[in-house]
């Protein structure tokens, strides 16, 4: 493949992945998913760096990607530790819980309607019953007299 065309395609792909991560970071409310989208933005940048490194035959791009992986690991460790502490305080991973940290003068965001989970989405897999029906003690059905 033509080198310039390969570079161009890589740059476009890196930009698209960065944009997708940006959309996810802004829209999602789960703290961990937001963090995942931030990591996706880092991955888009890594693609760009590796493409430039290959185009200019220079090691610098790949070096920066390696350091970015190291920094991302540190950031993930610290970020997840902080998120666990926040969850410890608030019992939820919703970032709207912490909206008291918003700018002064901004109205709070209130959930107007919380959609209930659709019945067809709450289907969990189950095993087909097989074998003989065990003999059940009717007294034990209500509660266990012993553990």
């Amino acid at each position: 493949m033509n080198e310039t065309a390969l570079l161009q395609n890589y740059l476009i792909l890196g930009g698209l992945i960065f944009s997708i991560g940006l959309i996810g970071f802004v829209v999602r409310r789960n703290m961990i998913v937001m963090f995942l989208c931030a990591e996706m933005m880092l991955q888009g940048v890594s693609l760009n760096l590796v493409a430039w490194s290959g185009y200019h035959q220079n090691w610098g791009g790949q070096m920066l990607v390696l350091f970015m992986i190291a920094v991302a690991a540190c950031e993930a460790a610290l970020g997840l530790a902080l998120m666990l502490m926040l969850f410890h305080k608030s019992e939820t991973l919703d970032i709207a819980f912490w909206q008291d940290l918003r700018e002064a003068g901004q109205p709070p965001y209130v959930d107007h309607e919380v959609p209930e989970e659709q019945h067809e989405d709450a289907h969990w897999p189950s095993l087909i019953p097989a074998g003989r029906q065990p003999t059940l003690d009717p007294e034990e059905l209500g509660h266990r007299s012993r553990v």
Partner: protein
Amino acid sequence: MMLLFAQTETAAAGGLAARLESALAPAWPFLTASLFWAVLLAAAAFWILLVSERRAGRRAGVLLGLVSLAFWAADAPLVADAASVSLYLYWLLAGMALVSAAAAVTSRSPVYCALWFALMLLATAGLFLLQGAQFVGVATVAVYAGAIVVMFLFVLMLAQPEGRAYYDRISWGWAAPVAAALVGVGLASSVVRLSDATGISLRERVLAAAPELAGTADQRLLSDVRLKTTPHSGQFTLTLYINDDPALWSDRQSALTSRLAMQALEIDEAALELRLLRAEPLAMHHMARLGGEMFSVHLISVEVAGTLLLAALVGAVAIIIRGKDIPHGDIQSDDIQNEDTNAGPGSDAS
């Protein structure tokens, strides 16, 4: 295939140079119609997928996303050269990366998000290997997908073991997904709007201006064109990479001078050494050279990165140990304003 490094100064007078200069007239930047529609339809698909709850709505969003993916893949040439396995591999891996990224962003279960993200990391690792970055590709799989994503899943299992919650299905009202989709479109459009100096069209324009550089149908003479601009001076250098196949020329020097009719052609033999760094996934001694570069030129950065890792480790342990003193689930949302935090200039503003 060996490459010669050829250079021509545009300031030199001559028929070829004049024609090349005319070929460098600015053209519309590289944004094909299919890419434009792909980005637009993808924005619509994202908006649908991010707000829809019903299964039918999500199916429509997925369909729209696949249509946009088809538009993006329309740029891929249907007929490739014999030695272009990398071309197909690129489109396959890139499509996989885009689909996984979109699914990771729009999944309603956070565990599915993490798994789609891991699949996207595998696709990008393949793309790194395609560029010849062996260590970066393997490090992505081993460190990123193997350690960081697993850590995400651990924390998810600790914090949200039942799976979906209400905040995974809604966003900040109806405006946020629309605004995010529009911003994503704008960002993607401006990112792909590359300057025409590095576009594929440059090579075609050069070939149109100087057809003698085209060669025959099965042995292309001109393999690559690069343009370097000196800022603030109006000077630019056009570099032509020429396919030098020994079987093609009987007498290298005379064939080149007679066929290309260039006035000054400098052949840089040292440029042949570039072959050692070519983007080949199976290039030899990649790790040795990477290590040599890393521990000589970037030695201080490596040491600083190691210290950073140590600091992060100590910091994470410190956070967890300090966090154990805080009572469990005791604090309501209102208490954050009343809490006696470290006094700062912003705490008394409200």
